[in-house]
């Protein structure tokens, strides 16, 4: 973790922020009820996939289900090792 303390984790203070105005663009979504589309979950969608890709990049092991527990990883590592020995 690069920013494991607040001192060098630079976040905007009240002196830094420009004025923020929020506008909603009304664009009905054809497949949602009454044209609605969820907006709250979007930041969550990519996280698990990004972590899985990072693990694949680091170890060569690709896990395709969540939750991805330490036990899942250990099992995957052991399977890989057995394949290598066999």
């Amino acid at each position, binding site marked *: 973790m690069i920013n494991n303390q607040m001192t060098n984790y630079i976040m905007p203070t009240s*002196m830094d922020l420009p004025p923020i105005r929020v506008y909603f663009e009304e664009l009905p979504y054809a497949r949602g009820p009454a044209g609605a589309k969820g907006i709250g979950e979007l930041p969550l969608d990519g996280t698990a996939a990004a972590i899985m890709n990072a693990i694949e990049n680091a170890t060569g092991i690709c896990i395709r289900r969540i939750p991805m527990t330490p036990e899942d990883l250990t099992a995957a590592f052991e399977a890989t090792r057995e394949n290598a020995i066999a």
Partner: protein
Amino acid sequence: MPDARSPDAPGTIAVRCRVNGRDETLHDYPMARLLDTLREKLHLTGIKEGCGEGECGACSVEIDGKLVNSCLIPVAQVEGAEIRTIEGVATTEQLSVVQQAFISYGGAQCGICTPGMVLAAVNLLEQNNHPTEPEIRAALAGNLCRCTGYMKIFESILRACDRTEVQS
């Protein structure tokens, strides 16, 4: 479990001060953080620990009218001091004008910065009844907020000024 900071525990000192208008004697190690002593001894848990290193302002308290980070103040430093915490801002069921404005105008979201923000705002308004937005920004510069983007907090404080000449 015995309390390591009982009045006769070795190495502890007695510090007399006023907290929210009441005389208190704090028994603790000299370098104990004021933050911990106030939370654990006096149960003033409105004071929050955010970063613990003086960056975020969640642990703001007033000492002799000045806003400070209580995580950076050793308890030995407050002998004879007049301390005010968020618990001292509204002493009755009635919220202070600033607190009510934070609720009414969306100045509070997750809440961890809120006690410090309110105290910083009250501290500002007691010195300056009608601050401009730049003055509000400067006064809150030591209090970090990750939810609101600050705009709702500025608005809450400006609205609180509209509502009263006499601050909490």
